[in-house]
């Protein structure tokens, strides 16, 4: 340690310590979860398992209900993303392109669902959904998730649409394209990075949403995060770790595939007022 301190100098050493703390903070729990999931025998309060094995993977993967929740979650995330795109892209385009009365009001109202405690909104929704017979249905859970994702889905693509110049759209009209053709062949491809980022957030957001799914979806709809609650409460830590790792896989895969679109620029342009 002393060698390191003098070797790096005072300032560098402090930075190094800070980095080490951050790494521990971010990756420590992840690492712990990974090792636990491959544990054979593990007893508190040890940090690492006593023996290793795939015992708990076998256990989780043999449970039909848990496998089902994986399918439900993936299907749900896809449906939520598609529906959210269909609703929000036209709204995002209108906000980006047209000057109309109440434009900033419309824009800010998409923030509302994210500005209040989620549980309050879910409870209110549950009351309404109960009357509409949406409790415990797939549609109900989709609706809850869509409400959650609207802000990202409107704001980020709207910022992306703003970077498309009106002349570029008009040139395409001039060249013989209809308004719809212009949108799909010129505007969308140019705004693509923003749309991808927003879809990614929506997909991941839907994958990890638990509160709303629990409140609206139970007893019929089991998503992975809502199932995780049950597992944590009634099984050993190691089973929870396995399930958490499974929950992590799609997120990590998506982030790796689309990482070139994940720029600070795409995000910040969406939040410009």
């Amino acid at each position, binding site marked *: 340690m002393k060698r390191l301190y003098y070797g790096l100098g005072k300032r560098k050493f402090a930075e190094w310590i800070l980095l080490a703390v951050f790494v521990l903070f971010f990756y420590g729990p992840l690492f712990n979860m990974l090792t636990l999931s491959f544990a054979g025998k593990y007893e508190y309060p040890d940090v690492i398992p006593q023996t290793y094995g795939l015992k708990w993977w076998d256990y989780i993967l043999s449970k039909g209900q848990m496998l089902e929740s994986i399918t439900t979650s993936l299907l749900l995330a896809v449906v939520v993303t598609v529906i959210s795109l269909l609703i929000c892209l036209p709204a995002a385009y209108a906000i980006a392109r047209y000057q109309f009365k109440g434009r900033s009001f419309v824009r800010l109202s998409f923030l509302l669902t994210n500005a209040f405690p989620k549980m309050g909104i879910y409870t209110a929704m549950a009351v309404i959904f109960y009357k509409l017979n949406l409790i415990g249905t797939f549609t109900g859970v989709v609706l809850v998730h869509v409400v959650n994702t609207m802000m990202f889905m409107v704001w980020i693509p709207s910022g992306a649409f703003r970077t498309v110049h009106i002349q570029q759209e008009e040139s*395409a009209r001039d060249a013989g394209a209809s308004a719809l053709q212009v949108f799909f062949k010129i505007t969308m491809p140019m705004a693509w990075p923003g749309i991808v980022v927003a879809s990614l957030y929506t997909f991941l957001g839907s994958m990890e949403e638990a509160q709303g799914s629990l409140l609206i979806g139970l007893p019929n709809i089991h998503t992975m995060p809502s199932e995780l609650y049950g597992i944590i409460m009634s099984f050993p830590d190691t089973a929870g770790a396995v399930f958490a790792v499974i929950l992590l896989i799609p997120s990590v895969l998506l982030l790796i595939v689309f990482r070139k679109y994940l720029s600070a620029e795409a995000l910040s342009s969406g939040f410009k007022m």
Partner: protein
Amino acid sequence: MSEKLIIENLTKKFGKNEGVENINLSVKEHELLTLLGPSGCGKTTILRAIGGFNQIDSGRILLDGKEIQNLQPEKRPTGMVFQSYNLWPHMTVYENMAFGMQIRKCPKEQIKKEIKKMLELVRMDGSEKKYPSQLSGGQQQRIAIARALVLKPSLLLLDEPFSALDAKIRGQMREELKRIQREAGLTVIFVTHDQEEAMAISDRIAVMRRGYMEQVGKPEEIYDHPKTRFVAEFIGEMNFIEENGSSFAVRPEDVTLQHDQNGKYEIFQMMSLGHYTQAIVKKSEKEMLKVFLEKDQAKGFETGNRVNCIFDRQQEFAARA
């Protein structure tokens, strides 16, 4: 020459005072007509109305004898080039140019052939595979023009296409445009606020001010015989001499200086501008004239000389209100 485009009583208002009212204009086949005026005079409004990007309030626009004022932009046989951001950055030059032809379902072989021909016309051959961001501003505008021309528009509309370029390139592009227009036999409406550019390229110029046409005519006609004081001031350099309630307009090149010990004017400043010299002569603090002298003539004069001014040509306008 036949009339290509006829505009009758075109009115397009934005709010109360903005816009154009009762515009009548015709453009002949193979003619390059320029709409010239300061910003906000309505020149772009007219151009966009012809291209279909402004819904007009009233009036008729006839292109090749057919009314087009109610058609969507994509249905009009016009080709438009804007000041900037014409090209689609996610497509190559080839894809940009093929876009319109693909929508028209032209066979691939024909698309390829036409694009090659057009790129040669604008002297950009071989740039098919490049992306717009790999081209300079001037090259991008050439491609934009070629992209409009590849669809064989009946009328080419240019909205200040060279304004964003630097002065030297702008000069080259003017010459190029003139050549392309001649070689392809194009009818063009060109919008600019740059009177020098308008003088250089136009067959006819329409000078506009606050939504009205002040004068329409050949460049030399407008330069030599401006109909209104605004046109006289806006086109080229002009001296105004106020005398007995009326004012005379004299071009700086129409003034001859003569040495005279008792002359009414004194040379205040001489400035060599390369191929000619500009002199400012002063009668009083308020009355100064700009005079252009040939290089040889200028040799005989110096700052401080007393001179007389002889006006070779002058034109009378009502005094400024």
